[in-house]
């Protein structure tokens, strides 16, 4: 078979899609330029006035020292205190100190809701409330590799002003601000399961440091509450414990606070009801902010000024800066909290409200000017509007200073309005797209889908014609030309445009070539309108509506169900499901369409109906493993999604454990059973070693690991050390066993056992041609069933040529080959099994049930396809191995279905970060390994179905109709026997073209879904839900495609590997037997 051309074509298709995705995403996801300038004391006030001293840094500030306690994920709800609540839940009323202080000392303390900007991940938030700028979507991915903040920020300014900043807690800060702290005590933050290390580390150090005098700003970042949320969710006794601890900390800090010190207690973000964060729901964005000062800082509560309830997170930056008497960071777009400054009537120390606002306005204006000169993404009309507003404000303020009167309330209001509108303008323009790139990406993807379709329809012609070379060369040339042109004209070359031009040119050329060589009528568009492709169309259309994306799991299941019912209905419509009525046999034979014997039809349609039933049952049961999006109001996430360690009821936990264990063993047993049934476990190769030993061993490791991780922490105190060790060793052992298995599988994928029977009478000088029997079973009956007299047509023919004289049937030496009939599918099934186990290990334990369903459903689809193609084998005119659209669509949609049914959702907060800690409970040092683990966890169903995709080609051969013709023609031994997958060796041309066709169809279906979600993002880019629904969906769909296509290539490569191994086997056999 043609191995290299098939792989090259597939690789090329994948590359085309990657370039399309890259182009579109480059134009769609927004980027903000970072302004790397810093403010200094000199540029704060100079032209403002002469009334205040020219250099305000040296003026005595309103607050000398600040203690900032950051309690990660301190949700606004946690800080509220309701004395009337008699039976508070674990997270309610646990921080009474905040409420008590605000009510008893209203001029010293305030409690606000502190609203973060999405994304609500810790690193983004730290950046947000130190630089005061707004994040963009592109920042999301950096959570693992937090690198230093280059923009101007509070910490930098504090250092410039000579303030001693002492930091302790979450070590993210140290990587963000390396060498900026006077003293820092970082503690590891990555291990989500560890509730106490960071907090206890802070508690040991904070009070001695506070009592000492070697600090001006003290930052302490507690992580316990956040980790508790991640691990147990907010509604858990551990949360109450943690919050009570925080209450104690705040109390003792307040007790030690001096009069010139400000205490800031804040949460960086909130959390959802399940304890996750990252999105933009109000539960995630609303944190608490508590301000307390030893001396009265706030106006009396009866002042006429209406204080805001909600404070945006960026507003803390200018406020703290001006309170401490340092310049506001250059690119901050926040607005000072006026209530912390004295209204100008009584100006004892520090800045008055008017002055503070004016400084703020000037700083924001300067930033806007700098930014708009650097980047052109802020629209000119709103920029000019802002400029006129600023000049008005400036005139009014300066005149009021000249007059010596305090700024009027109208002026204050207009300054606030200016700041608000700048913030809104920035927010809007940092959500700005590059339409040209988006259009190019769309075009490339659209052409890519057409390409896939053409290749799948013309796979034979494409493989014969070697049509790839010219387009790729032309594409490279054009890409190079574009690059050279860009360098000449612009001075630099933009990668995306070169790639885009290259790929577009190659695609166009390929399509043109295909059009020329395509036989007439092959590419008719009418058979596109069959039901399977209609389902695909519906699926793609559903990606264009936010409601359907939100309930995507159910939509996919609905479509799959309809497609599953299509099989029996279609076969019945064609009259193939029931045996042909007996009246027909009286007709003359010439008119009679060839039909299968009734018993075979009955058996096959029985299998078909049973498989449909299993498929439907799997679909229905898989609905109970779904997780919930925040948009789905009354929805309960599946109970199987909670890790066992979180389940509090011990009986329920045991039940879950037993269920998971049962499905795990069922998974291993079914694989073993299948391999044994087809005789693939007889040889002594390493592959069998994998199946016989590694697979069960790995499952045992997993079962033990689940048991260990499910034990509550405090049950076996004396065994704690051992348990901790087991939590590291067991999963790593399972991973390495599985990895070893896959490696061995790759090295020697053959599962064939050859048994040579000594010839009875081999005395003749000329060896009679051997008679090959390939057997798949172990028992004699099974052997009879799977008898393969013709092992390999070509060998036989060559042998026949060699010694055509001796044809005595008894004199032939016979070679029996066990497992030859499933030589291609066995390694693939085994690989899927191993990978499935590995990915199951990355999931919560309860997902074992869902993985078992996945296995069952995949088997049901395969058998459905096999028996339907058996039933229609005599009717179909298509080429020998060609896989029709319906099973491929079914297979591909099942991948999306199980993406949802393994508890995943296309949203960022629902990513199961816990996967990164399986086997690494202490956290990681690098970023590659955790990212890989999380990717494997997220796209596990896509990976499994992608690797298993070639099985669709093999299964009809595995389930080939046995003994139909032999029984009729009286047991003819030659030619018509069951050869199973050896048919593929007999027709290598058709095999490679069918494989190419199948894979191209699979890629087409996945690519069409990517195209649809890209279209959705492009068309609905101003939609309310774009950042909440469509952009994450696009990211997930594109990543799923990339991961899936890589693993499709892996699956195809394994098939190639098996093929070459089989070829070598036959080569080895040939000289031996003909000697």
């Amino acid at each position, binding site marked *: 078979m043609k191995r290299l051309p098939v792989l090259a074509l597939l690789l090329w298709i994948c590359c085309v899609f990657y370039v399309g995705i890259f182009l579109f995403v480059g134009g769609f996801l927004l980027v903000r330029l970072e302004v790397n300038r810093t403010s200094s004391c000199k540029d704060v006030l100079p032209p403002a006035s002469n009334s205040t001293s020219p250099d305000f840094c040296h003026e005595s500030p309103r607050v000398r020292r600040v203690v900032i306690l950051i309690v990660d994920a301190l949700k606004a709800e946690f800080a509220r205190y309701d004395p009337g609540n008699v039976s508070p839940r674990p997270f309610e009323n646990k921080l009474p100190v905040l409420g008590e202080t605000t009510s008893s000392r209203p001029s010293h303390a305030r409690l606000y809701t502190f609203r973060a900007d999405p994304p609500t991940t810790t690193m983004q938030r730290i950046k947000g409330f130190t630089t005061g700028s707004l994040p963009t979507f592109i920042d999301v991915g950096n959570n693992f590799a937090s690198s230093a903040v280059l923009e101007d920020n509070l910490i930098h300014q504090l250092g410039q002003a000579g303030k001693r900043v002492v930091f302790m807690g979450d070590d993210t800060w140290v990587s963000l601000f390396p060498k900026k702290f006077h003293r820092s005590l970082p503690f590891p933050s990555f291990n989500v399961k560890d509730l106490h290390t960071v907090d206890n580390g802070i508690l040991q150090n904070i009070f001695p440091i506070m009592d000492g005098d070697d600090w001006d700003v003290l930052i302490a970042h507690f992580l316990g509450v956040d980790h508790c949320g991640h691990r147990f969710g907010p509604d858990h006794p551990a949360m109450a414990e943690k919050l009570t601890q925080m209450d104690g900390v705040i109390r003792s800090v307040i007790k030690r606070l001096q009069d010139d010190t400000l205490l800031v207690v804040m949460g960086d973000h909130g959390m959802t009801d399940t304890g996750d964060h990252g999105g933009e729901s109000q539960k995630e964005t609303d944190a608490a902010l508590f301000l307390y000062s030893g001396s009265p800082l706030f106006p009396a509560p009866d002042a006429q000024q209406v204080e805001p309830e909600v404070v945006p997170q960026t507003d803390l930056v200018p406020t703290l800066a001006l309170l401490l008497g340092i310049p506001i960071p250059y690119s901050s777009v926040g607005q000072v909290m006026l209530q912390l400054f004295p209204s100008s009537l009584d100006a004892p120390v520090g800045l008055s409200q008017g002055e503070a606002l004016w400084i703020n306005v000037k700083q924001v204006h300067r930033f806007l000017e700098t930014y708009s000169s650097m980047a052109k993404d802020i629209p000119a009309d709103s920029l000019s509007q802002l400029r006129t507003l600023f000049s008005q404000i400036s005139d009014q303020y300066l005149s009021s200073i000249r007059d010596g009167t305090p700024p009027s309330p109208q002026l204050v209001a207009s300054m606030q309005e200016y700041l608000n509108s700048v913030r809104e303008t920035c927010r809007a323009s940092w959500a700005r797209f590059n339409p040209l790139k988006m259009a190019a990406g769309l075009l490339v993807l659209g052409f890519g889908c057409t390409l896939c379709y053409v290749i799948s329809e013309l796979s034979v012609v494409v493989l014969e014609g070697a049509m790839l070379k010219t387009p790729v060369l032309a594409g490279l040339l054009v890409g190079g030309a574009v690059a050279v042109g860009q360098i000449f004209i612009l001075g630099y070359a933009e990668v995306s445009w070169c790639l885009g031009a290259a790929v577009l040119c190659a695609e166009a050329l390929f399509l043109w070539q295909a059009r020329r060589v395509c036989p007439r009528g092959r590419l008719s568009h009418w058979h596109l309108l069959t039901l399977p492709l209609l389902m695909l169309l519906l699926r793609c259309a559903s990606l264009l*509506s*936010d*409601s*359907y994306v*939100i*309930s995507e799991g*159910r*939509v996919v*299941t*609905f479509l799959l*169900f*309809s497609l599953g019912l299509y099989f029996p*209905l279609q076969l*019945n*419509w*064609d*009259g193939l*499901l*029931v045996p042909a009525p007996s009246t027909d046999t009286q007709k003359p034979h010439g008119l009679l369409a060839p039909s299968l014997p009734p018993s075979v039809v009955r058996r096959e349609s029985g299998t078909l109906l049973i498989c449909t039933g299993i498929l*439907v049952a799997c*679909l*229905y049961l898989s*609905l109970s493993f779904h997780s919930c999006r925040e948009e789905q109001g009354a929805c309960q996430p599946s109970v199987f999604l909670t890790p066992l360690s979180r389940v509090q009821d011990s009986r329920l936990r045991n039940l879950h454990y037993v269920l998971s264990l049962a499905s795990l063993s069922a998974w291993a047993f079914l694989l073993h059973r299948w391999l044994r049934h087809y005789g693939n476990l007889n040889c002594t190769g390493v592959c069998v070693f994998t199946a016989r030993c590694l697979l069960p061993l790995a499952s045992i490791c997993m079962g033990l690991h689940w048991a260990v991780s499910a034990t509550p922490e405090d049950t076996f105190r004396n065994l704690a050390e051992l348990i901790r060790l087991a939590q590291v060793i067991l999963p790593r052992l399972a991973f390495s066993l599985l990895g070893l298995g896959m490696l061995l599988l790759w090295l020697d994928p053959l599962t064939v056992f050859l048994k040579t029977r000594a010839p009875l009478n081999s005395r003749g000088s000329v060896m009679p041609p051997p008679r090959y029997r390939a057997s798949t079973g172990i028992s004699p009956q099974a052997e009879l069933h799977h008898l393969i007299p013709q092992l390999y047509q070509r060998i036989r023919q060559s042998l026949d040529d060699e010694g055509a004289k001796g044809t005595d049937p008894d004199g032939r030496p016979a070679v029996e080959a066990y497992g030859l009939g499933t030589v291609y599918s066995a390694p693939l099934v085994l690989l899927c099994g191993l990978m499935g186990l590995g990915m199951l290990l990355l999931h919560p334990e309860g997902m074992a049930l869902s993985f078992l369903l996945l296995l069952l459903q995949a088997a049901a689809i395969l058998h459905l396809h096999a028996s339907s193609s058996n039933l229609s084998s005599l009717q179909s005119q298509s080429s020998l191995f060609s896989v029709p659209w319906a099973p491929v669509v079914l297979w591909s949609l099942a991948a999306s279905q199980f993406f949802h049914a393994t508890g995943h959702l296309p949203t960022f907060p629902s990513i199961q970060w816990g996967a990164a800690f399986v086997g690494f409970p202490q956290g990681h040092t690098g970023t590659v390994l955790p990212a890989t683990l999380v990717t494997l966890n997220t796209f596990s169903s896509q990976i499994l179905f992608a690797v298993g995709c070639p099985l669709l080609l093999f299964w009809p051969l595995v389930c080939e109709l046995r003994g139909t013709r032999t029984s009729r023609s009286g047991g003819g031994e030659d030619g018509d026997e069951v050869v199973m997958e050896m048919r593929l060796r007999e027709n290598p041309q058709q095999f490679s073209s069918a494989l190419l066709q199948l894979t191209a169809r699979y890629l087409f279906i996945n690519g069409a879904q990517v195209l649809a979600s890209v279209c959705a993002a492009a068309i609905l880019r101003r939609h309310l839900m774009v950042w909440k629904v469509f952009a994450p969906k696009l990211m997930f769909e594109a990543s799923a495609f990339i991961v899936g296509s890589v693993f499709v290539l892996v699956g195809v490569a394994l098939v190639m590997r098996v093929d070459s191994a089989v070829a070598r086997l036959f080569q080895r056999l040939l000289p031996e037997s003909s000697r």
Partner: protein
Amino acid sequence: MWEVEIRGMASAHALLAGSVLVGSLVPALSVENFSVYGTHLVWLYSVCGCVAIVNITVFWLLGISPPTKKHTLSYKLSRLIRSCVYFLLSCLFFHTVVVLYGASLLESALETFSLAVLLSTLTTLRCLCMLGPNVQAWIRVFSRDGAMSVWDTSLQITTGCSVVGAWLGAFPIPLDWDRPWQVWPVSCSLGATGGFLTGLLAAPIWIRWHRKQLTYKLK
């Protein structure tokens, strides 16, 4: 001959379509506060009843159903009982299918069952009237060469249209439009009824259009 048969079928279909209309009008005149969305089940059952009555009457009068070999009372009675059992079974079957399609299992089970009754009335009842309680014949009719008369073809078309209509009716349910007809099972039952009416209209037209290609084996 074609003309006669088609005309006969068209008038029978007109009667059936009329029965849907009557089924909607009767409760509108007799029941207080009636609306198709608000008191949906009333509408549904009244349509079911009217369609069932008209269906049975029309086919009994026309004598389409296969000629029975025996004319004894007990045989007829057993046929009747078997038909009733089949109808009930088909209701249960549709209920199961609808639940498997994603309807909630316990909540609003009555609504789901009512939809199943409607679907059975629109599809199974016609099968029962035309082919008798004979599952083999039903399976035979729904294959490409299975139709043996214009009536069989019309049965294929109307049944297919009703089921597809109900299937399409499920599409608007997840949308966030908050319309009264998105409530379960309003859109599905409206879809099924709409599909049925479309099928009634389409069948004579389609048969007339394809009368050259249609060849029926003699019974």
